[in-house]
């Protein structure tokens, strides 16, 4: 059941992206920016977290989940540390993902060469 929920919700979020690409000709980079930003907004409004509770990785693996993590981190930190939390909370909560992306991304780019187009 858990896996079915993750599959359906994750798939549907990707369909939204596909419709945006096909209907508006937005580039993938813009789609990613739109998705992260809407994740932050939905997270701040408390709409996205229930979806994460419901669908698990189906909601946290798509990029709005990354935005939700940033928003949740900021709100938690503001509650705990006050004004400084505005600047520390987001990246603190997303630190693992950001650092992994930078570190693995660099390492893998060094090790592998681009494949010739088939």
């Amino acid at each position, binding site marked *: 059941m858990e896996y079915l929920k993750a599959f359906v919700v994750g798939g549907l979020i990707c369909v939204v992206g596909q419709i945006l690409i096909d209907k508006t000709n937005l580039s993938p980079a813009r789609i*990613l920016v739109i998705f992260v930003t809407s994740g932050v907004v939905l997270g701040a409004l408390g709409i996205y977290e229930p979806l994460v509770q419901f669908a698990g990785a189906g909601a946290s693996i798509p990029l709005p989940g990354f935005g939700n993590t940033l928003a949740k981190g900021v709100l938690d930190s*503001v509650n705990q540390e006050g004004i400084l939390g505005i600047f520390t909370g987001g990246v603190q909560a997303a630190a693992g993902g950001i650092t992994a992306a930078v570190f693995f991304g660099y390492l893998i780019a060094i090790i592998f060469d681009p494949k010739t187009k088939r």
Partner: protein
Amino acid sequence: MDAIKQNKDREYQKYVSAKMPKTNILRNCTSAFLVGGLICVIGQIILNIGRNYYNLDQNSAATFTTIVMIFLGGILTGLGVYDDIGKIGGAGSIVPITGFSNSIVSPAMEFKREGFVLGIGAKMFTVAGPVLVYGIGSSVVVGFIYYFFVR
């Protein structure tokens, strides 16, 4: 003469608009749904491994999953497999976090010959940079609004 040509043009336009996008959108959405859904199922498996075998709490398990998925997306990009997944999956391969790491590794490999600093170091962030700018930027805006107006 002109009227016939115009008529033909119009018919051709009708033919194109009737033929082209609809079938494609439906097919694209189906494969985006399947590929994106499958990637999330893999994420859920990793999430459960984190929870059950490493006894991580909810937040740590989510971070663990993100890190592993970013690694997998990066490796598959390095091996050239993720491009093939992308050809089938479209947005289904772009929207999950594996697509984020694909967007880092892909240009970084491509621009390797421009050097370690301005090649790999800079081009890694062709897409990831904007994502971080707008993600972190909007989270700070959210923080300001929350601190001054909501709390």
